[in-house]
């Protein structure tokens, strides 16, 4: 039987390595996108692929600077409430039809339409009437978006949003090809039917395996797009991804395994790219229950007792940076505040931590007993073990580690009933302090510690109302200082992006958003 024959390894070698000859970029992707429908996505993986497939009014360079994309230029009114975009002349969909301002307006209306059930509907919340449309109390036609002619798009905002241009780079603000949505319904974003306006079009997608993109000949900047196609290999397992890179199957990995990092730094010093990201890893306190409710000295003591330098050097060890603020460095026009004890040396910190611990009502004879919850993962366990040891050494705290499946931990954090200390993280959606500070506003659904400070909320409200960027910045920085002095959480470290990038890839740029458009890259010609 021929079937069984081919399964026996013999002299007929079945070695088959992905061909890299055809000017096709091979990239790792850490999980399947849930969809490539730009208005229904929620994962960073989907956004990564969509940045190759689609294009917003504004885009980023390889190093993360905002640049005109589908819009050639724009004007902003003096009060910051009206944006007028002028589209490029030669914009085309992948089927050759022109991309118009109406397509962008249709995309934005689709995003906020309740029946779309878009995860990122709130991205455009600052556009006039968007919140009311999302909640279903106003019809979608009332959205503050107009397309007076084919090439002009006008956005009216209900509040000044200095980071709006950054939001417009996100796939949720991409235009939609209405005829294909009408013809194919909600499953239009598939191979064969997906009409895109970016540098690439969707060739094929095998869920759980491979997403293939090919050059969009109609793209306005096709002449400057060097690579003919991109294959995204879905590789959930880091170690498997590394194997594929070593075997020469991949040009760019999505990340690298923690345990291999030190070795890879020696083995591939040029190829391993590590860059700070807009993301923070933290331990939150449940502020709705004892022992952390109304006990600021205890929270401060625990935060002070964690030696972040040791944690990032000896435990995580992948180039992460110690965190003393909530907003990570690298955010546009913002200087992060820092926790008060940052200036103290280790000894002084520990002394002060013990004093605060005592002040909070605990001692060696009466130690704090606390549970640390984290989701199952090697990395999270190591961090938890380290924090547990530091708390024990410095303060004598008796902590229990509890690992839970991710969905279980999320449910527990949201309920805030049984959690005490929990691991979480936050990654910025756009390059502005608001994406971090907004999380801890008392009415924010993502406010896991349940931090509620009138002063903090008021400062953020003032910042939001401020048109002058310098004054807005001062309010935001003051808000962060106020929040940090309350210690609702322990910032532990700043995330870094880690990629192996083959020497054959040119044009790579590190950036805090960790966005890497394939259209900015090129490949060495095969030998």
């Amino acid at each position: 039987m021929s079937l069984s024959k081919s399964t026996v390894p013999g002299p007929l070698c079945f070695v088959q390595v992905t061909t890299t000859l055809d000017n096709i970029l091979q990239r790792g992707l850490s999980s399947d996108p849930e969809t490539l429908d730009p208005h229904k996505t929620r994962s960073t993986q989907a956004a990564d692929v969509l940045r190759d497939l689609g294009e917003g009014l504004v885009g980023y360079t390889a190093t993360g600077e905002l640049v005109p994309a589908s819009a050639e230029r724009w004007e902003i009114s003096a009060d910051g409430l009206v944006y007028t975009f002028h589209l490029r002349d030669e914009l085309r969909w992948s089927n050759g039809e022109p991309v118009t301002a109406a397509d962008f307006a249709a995309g934005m209306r689709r995003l906020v339409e309740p029946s779309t059930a878009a995860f990122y509907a709130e991205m455009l919340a600052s556009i006039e009437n968007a919140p009311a449309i999302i909640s279903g109390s106003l019809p979608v036609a009332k959205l503050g978006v107009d397309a007076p002619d084919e090439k002009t798009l006008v956005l009216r905002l209900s509040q000044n949003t200095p980071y709006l241009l950054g939001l417009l780079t996100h796939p949720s603000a991409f235009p939609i090809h209405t005829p294909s949505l009408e013809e194919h319904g909600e499953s239009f974003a598939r191979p064969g039917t997906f009409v895109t306006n970016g540098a690439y079009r969707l060739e094929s997608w095998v869920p759980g395996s491979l997403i293939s993109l090919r050059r969009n000949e109609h793209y306005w900047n096709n002449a400057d797009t060097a690579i003919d196609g991109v294959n995204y290999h879905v590789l959930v397992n880091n170690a498997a991804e590394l194997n594929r890179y070593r075997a020469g199957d991949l040009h760019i990995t999505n990340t690298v395994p923690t345990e291999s990092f030190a070795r890879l730094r020696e083995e591939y010093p040029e190829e391993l790219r590590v860059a700070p990201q807009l993301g923070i890893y933290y331990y939150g306190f449940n502020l709705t229950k004892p022992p952390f409710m109304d006990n600021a000295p205890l929270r401060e003591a625990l935060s002070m007792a964690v030696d972040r330098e040791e944690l990032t050097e000896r435990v995580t060890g992948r180039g992460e940076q110690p965190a003393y603020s909530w907003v990570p460095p690298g955010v546009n026009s913002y200087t992060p505040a820092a926790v008060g004890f940052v200036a103290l040396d280790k000894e002084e910190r520990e002394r002060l931590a013990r004093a605060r611990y005592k002040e909070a009502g605990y001692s060696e004879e009466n130690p704090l007993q606390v549970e640390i919850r984290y989701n199952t993962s090697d990395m999270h366990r190591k961090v938890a073990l380290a924090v547990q040891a530091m708390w024990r050494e410095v303060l004598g705290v008796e902590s229990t580690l509890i690992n839970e499946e991710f969905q279980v931990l999320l449910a527990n954090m949201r309920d805030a009933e049984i959690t005490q200390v929990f691991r979480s993280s936050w990654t910025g959606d756009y390059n502005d302090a608001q994406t971090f500070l907004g999380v801890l506003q008392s009415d924010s659904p993502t406010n896991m510690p349940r931090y509620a400070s009138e002063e903090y909320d008021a400062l953020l409200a003032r910042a939001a109302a401020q048109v002058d960027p310098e004054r807005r910045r001062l309010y935001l920085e003051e808000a962060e200082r106020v929040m940090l002095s309350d210690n609702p959480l322990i910032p532990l470290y700043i995330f870094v992006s880690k990629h192996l990038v083959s020497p054959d890839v040119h044009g790579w740029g590190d950036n805090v958003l960790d966005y890497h458009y394939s259209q900015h890259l090129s490949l060495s010609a095969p030998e």
Partner: protein
Amino acid sequence: MLRYALLRILGAIPTLLLVIALAFLMVHAAPGGPFDDERVLPADVAANIESAYRLDDPLPQQFLAYLSGLVRFDLGPSYRYVGYTVAELIAIALPYSLQLGIMAMVVALLLGVSAGTFAALRQDTVLDRVVMGFSMTGISIPIFVIAPVLALLFAVKLQWLPAGWSGAEGAGRLVLPVVTLALPQIAYLARLTRASMIEVLGSDFIRTARAQGLGMPRVVRVHALKPAMLPVLSYLGPAVAAILTGSVVVEEIFGIPGLGQLFVRGALNRDYTLVLGIVVFYAALIVALNLVVDILYAVIDPRVRYR
């Protein structure tokens, strides 16, 4: 025979219903929902999503809606893969799992039965011990240990075979997964065949055949193999089940886009409909295969007849 088959199919319905009900309860009892994330959604947005997927209905109503869909062979929309129905996802993934499963089954049968027969004919010799020793090892080592070891050895160190699936082409990418999946079955089938063959070889009709001057190869081929296969045949049902569940692990490790990895992703993401759909599909498949095995039994062994 037809009547028997129909009765068996009808009899399977309560089993399937029970499986569906249990699976439904279990996926919904697991904490968290399909749309939970560190990025908690604003209430309005969450409400829109829940109503779009009818997750705001009471649970019994959701269950009835699911059942009424099932009757129409509608497994519902996937929560994880937006815009895909569960049936579409199964249709995409099934060919990979089928290819893998069928090949593993064929390899297991060919090698397992041959090895078992070989060992039976050399009962209590060194060769017999070697074959049985190997098969004991094969049964004892779990797939999740075999798979990474084989991958490390043949794909990473020796580089004879591709380490992953996506982008690799040809039959090479199937070798390691098929071998991994087949190994425990080869081992089990070898032991089963050996025991059964030894028993058959000791029976009167074989002695008669030998006495009439037939050579051993012919005796085995013509007279012994068929009756010796009966226990093997009854084991096929459980073997298919083992290969299906084993493929969950193998597909994960080798990155094969089949049903197994779809199932794992579905469970981790609380994709209720996807998990349920695959459970229903697996259950129906196993029921159907057991039926086929029972019918084959009657075909091979004339003593078995159904009334």
